């Protein structure tokens, strides 16, 4: 406990930052969500507190939007993970070490342009009269009909969020050093066993970071879905934004935001529980507990005396 104190103090600026820019705004949103919109000219009031806004939130349209958001969020995150995992592994383990810096820079290239601009770029590429569609028609294909579908939304999601998955995974794989993998092979494990028993478990912090970095912002994102999914791209983020900006009903918008936060937390918890449960029998089969010896071997106790 005494050792932790200096670390805690060193982290004080970080805690202050967290308090001012995270805890305070979220606290206010929660507070507003119990209020109401008193008149068309006011955004919110909290002199009367109730759960009424939450009752308002759970309308059938909201449910459909929520379902859609959750679907895009989960499927998008899973896709990013499935694509990002081999890419990050290849970058960290297989690619020549001298090229790794360049590869990381390439992964970051999309970040050099604005989020909205690069999503609009995909709209141009995917539109039925865009250059891709024209080129495909030139070699005898039907005009592209992918824009305003869930497929287009997922494409945009993968494109926009993949780097956020790859980078933490890359760092994690890079940290599982070569000798550990070699030791595994030396002890008779093939490359798949080595991956699942050594590399992947040791990369766990990176996996968690990557999944959260993609899933959480994705659940609040509506630009990707609106630009590429059109009317089919209804996302909760959009509803929240329209309550705050168009309808000027901060109370209802706050209630929606709170529900969104709760759903994100619940989904993460359920996901973690599923992974934990699925891997439970595998982990149990590898566990080996020996326990303390009934009597210490004579040689060991002699050894201890010598050391003492």
């Amino acid at each position, binding site marked *: 406990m005494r050792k932790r104190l200096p670390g805690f103090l060193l982290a004080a600026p970080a805690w202050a930052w967290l308090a001012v820019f995270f805890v305070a705004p979220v606290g206010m949103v929660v507070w507003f969500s119990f209020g109401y919109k008193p008149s068309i000219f006011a955004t919110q009031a909290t002199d009367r507190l109730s759960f009424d806004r939450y009752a308002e939130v759970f309308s059938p349209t909201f449910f459909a939007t929520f379902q859609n958001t959750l679907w895009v969020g989960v499927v998008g995150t899973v896709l990013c993970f499935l694509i990002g995992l081999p890419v990050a592994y290849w970058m960290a383990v297989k690619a020549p070490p001298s090229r790794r810096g360049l590869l990381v820079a390439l992964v970051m290239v999309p970040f050099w342009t604005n989020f909205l601009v690069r999503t609009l770029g995909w709209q141009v590429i995917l539109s039925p009269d865009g250059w891709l569609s024209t080129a495909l028609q030139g070699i005898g294909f039907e005009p592209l009909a992918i824009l305003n579908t869930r497929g287009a939304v997922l494409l945009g999601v993968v494109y926009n969020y993949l780097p956020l998955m790859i980078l933490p995974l890359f760092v994690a794989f890079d940290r599982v050093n070569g000798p550990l993998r*070699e030791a*595994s092979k*030396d*002890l008779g494990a093939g490359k798949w066993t080595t991956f699942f028993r050594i590399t992947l478990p040791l990369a766990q912090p990176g996996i968690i970071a990557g999944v959260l970095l993609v899933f959480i912002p994705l659940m609040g994102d509506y630009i990707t879905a609106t630009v590429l999914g059109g009317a089919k791209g209804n996302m909760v983020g959009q509803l929240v934004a329209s309550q705050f900006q168009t309808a000027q009903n901060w109370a209802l918008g706050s209630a929606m935001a709170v529900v969104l936060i709760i759903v994100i937390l619940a989904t993460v918890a359920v996901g973690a529980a599923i992974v934990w449960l699925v891997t439970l029998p595998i982990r149990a089969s590898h566990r*080996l507990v020996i*326990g303390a010896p009934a009597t210490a071997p004579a040689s060991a106790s002699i050894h201890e005396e010598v050391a003492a």
Partner: protein
Amino acid sequence: MTTATTTEAEAATTSSPGAEAPGTVVIDAVTKHYGDSTAVDRLSLTIEAGEFISLLGPSGCGKTTTLRMIAGFEEPDDGDIRVSGRSVLGVPPYRRDVNTVFQAYALFPHMSVAENVAYGLQQKRTPKAEIHDRVVDALDLAQMRRFADRKPTQLSGGQQQRVALARALVNRPSVLLLDEPLGALDRQLREEMQLELKLLQSRLGVTFVFVTHDQGEALSMSDRIAIMRSGRIEQLADADTVYARPASAYVAAFVGQQNFFSGTVVEGGTAVDSTHALVRGTSAGLPAGGTGLAAVRPEFVSIEADVAADASGAANTARGSLIGVSHLGETMQYLVRLGDDQSLIARRPSPEAPQLSVGDAVVCSWRAESVLLFPADDAASASGYVAPPTV
């Protein structure tokens, strides 16, 4: 008769399995390049079953590369490696009957000590009860039973070393490869582990291939020592031979300490005439007229105060001034300056060490029997080159 001959001939043309006992390692003219540099250069070495052999040499001479080719982490560019009589070229590490103790131990940090040791057995689908028993045995062997359920990060360096040993030996390999396994330990622990490793090896009868750059370690543990230089083996012999009859100046300099004298070969190849001494040996091994190296170990050099007025240059004596005296415990070490470019080290057992002080004029002498003569050699050519003292 005829059939027997045919079978024999056939056996000889194939790689004749059975001729090499389990645990034998044959390295046959193996070469390994990294880009333009050659890490291992047509190296040939036969390691007998149950032998404790050390690969000894300075950093960068190709020891690790050789070991990694036996383990299967690198493939030779040329040549053949056979383990227990069977070529292992193209055989992945996980199918070789060989285990490695890695330099930095490479213990799996997310598994307990027992789980680390069990890992290899789990790969072979060993029944659970048997895994438990064998893990316990291996941990007892390494005296690590008490720490079975700890994580490797909760262990000291020496304890991690023991776990790494148990993790390799539990698989009962016929060959165990060790890459500078004691390098990270402090001196006392290292010497303790040297003894233990040697005992363990002779008890188990497993072939040990031990890589080290520490000549003391190699001398104290090995049945035979292969001294490596630039990817080749300079000498392969037991410790006594390597120490008393080094095959080259390089070996002489690397194993133990030497005083080197460089000069013209005279007296029909039996002596070297250097600036500060005429060094005479007992055998004629060098072509007369060329340059040669004479070597004398510090423990063969006796030293006394220089009282004789005449500075006549008798053979195997050298005059100079004492510039350092150090107490090494059982011996006293004297550092003598012979000239600007040459100094000499003498060591005497403490009880019979002469009382001399820094600045005294001294005369050093040695017997012709203790002189080794070598052709001039790049690695030890600087006159007065003395290998770093052994710690």
